[in-house]
């Protein structure tokens, strides 16, 4: 099987030059930490957080995580942070927190251990070492997962192929009878608010209604919008009234105002 695995970006595994500065290839980050800033910007950006940076510092010098020479590491870490600042790289707060943690551990190690029971006090590095180890495990695991064949990268699926739909014997889905009853009752309830059915929509032309509204608004006062609607005319009548009002607004014959949402709408002749 052809497995095209994306090369992990781990710095320690990169053999190709990290960068070229004035035509000169940089294979390793110089130990003295003199880093030509522009060239190494990319390198610095590729850290996945303070733990990743710490791991890099440890690995790049073939140190054992378990030994964690705090003084040395702290010094280098701070140098990196300063460099990142200098390069104006966006620095997550987590990096600063780690710097503080390192400094704290360092200071604790410098203090003489006074313990009346003669027990050795917990090494302040223990927690950090545990975190580094834990992070390293999942970092490795993520590389393993990256290497697993993945669909559309390492292997391909077939496209579903066409078929001709053969018309099935038509079985219509049944109506939900209970829902039907509810629908009917709801309809009946609605009609309660309507006038008898002999109110014909045909008689309520929008034009006619517009004239009527203009007659009602025959003076300069604001009138409650609701006065223009007559429940007796039923739903269709209300719709015609509403359309007529909209039409009048459009023709700029009336003004419609409302102080705020839900408050009364007032209508007035222009």
């Amino acid at each position, binding site marked *: 099987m052809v497995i095209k695995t994306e090369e992990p970006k781990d710095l320690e595994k990169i053999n190709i030059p990290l960068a070229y500065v004035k035509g000169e290839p940089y294979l390793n980050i110089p130990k003295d930490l003199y880093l030509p800033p522009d060239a190494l910007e990319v390198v610095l950006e590729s850290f996945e957080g303070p733990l990743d940076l710490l791991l890099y510092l440890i690995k790049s010098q073939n140190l054992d995580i378990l030994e964690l020479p705090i003084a040395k590491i702290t010094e280098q870490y701070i140098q990196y942070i300063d460099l990142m600042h200098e390069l104006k790289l966006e620095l997550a707060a987590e990096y600063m927190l780690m710097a503080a943690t390192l400094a704290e551990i360092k200071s604790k190690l410098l203090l003489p251990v006074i313990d009346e029971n003669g027990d050795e006090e917990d090494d302040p590095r223990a927690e950090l070492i545990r975190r580094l180890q834990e992070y390293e495990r999942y970092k490795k695991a993520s590389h393993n997962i990256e290497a697993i064949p993945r669909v559309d990268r390492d292997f*391909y*699926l*077939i*496209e579903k*192929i*066409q*078929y*001709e*739909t*053969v018309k*099935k014997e038509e079985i*219509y*889905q*049944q*109506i939900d*009878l*209970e*829902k*039907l*009853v*509810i*629908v*009917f*009752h*709801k*309809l009946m*309830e*609605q*009609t309660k608010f*309507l006038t008898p*059915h002999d109110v014909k929509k045909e008689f309520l032309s929008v034009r006619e209604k517009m004239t009527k509204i203009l007659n009602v608004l025959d003076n300069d006062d604001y009138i409650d919008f609701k006065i223009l609607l007559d429940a007796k005319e*039923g*739903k*269709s009548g209300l719709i015609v009234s509403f359309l007529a009002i909209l039409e009048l607004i459009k023709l700029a014959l009336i003004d419609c105002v409302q102080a705020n949402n839900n408050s009364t709408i007032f209508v007035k002749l222009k």
Partner: protein
Amino acid sequence: MEKNEIKKIIEALLFSSSSPISLKEIRNFFEEENISIKIIEESINEIQDKYINSGVMLKKVSTGFRFQVSEDCNEWVSKFYPEKPQKYSRALMETLALIIYKQPITRTEIESVRGVSVSSNIIKTLLEREWIKILGYKDVPGKPAIFGTTKEFLNSHNLVSLSQLPKLDDIIELTEQEKRQLGLLETTEIDEKSTNAETDKIEEYNQENIH
């Protein structure tokens, strides 16, 4: 490159493509490999033969070759993918409800209750399904059709007579809230505890209506 390998690759390309692949595309693809058009054509023919008695077949269409389900399997594949259950529109449900409960009824009468016109499609659908039929024509100007339900409607809903249709009170022991939702109550008290299946049904119905 061996012909067998070429065949395998063409097969893989055809199965992984969402559209037909033309002879020209295949030829271009193999250009670097220096493979003659003859070999490619032969390969395609052999692939075609290979699938003669299979569930799929290689078919030449206007833009190239593609695999499709073989003719005798179409019926089975269609059966495997069930059609989406139809959803009935609110308009259809209301129209049908009025025809059931108010039959004989004309379209104008349905419209006057619903407050909107009834689309011809709805009447057509119901007639085609043979759930409703034209009982006759009203003796008024325009001679509108009078509709009623059919035996077929009863059969397809496992009913013997319309009297078996559920009564509103039977379906739901209506809670105060539900009654209010249905507009059957004018009180405004809210029964917070009603969260049973019936409420859900009504809510489902209401939601359908909202959009």
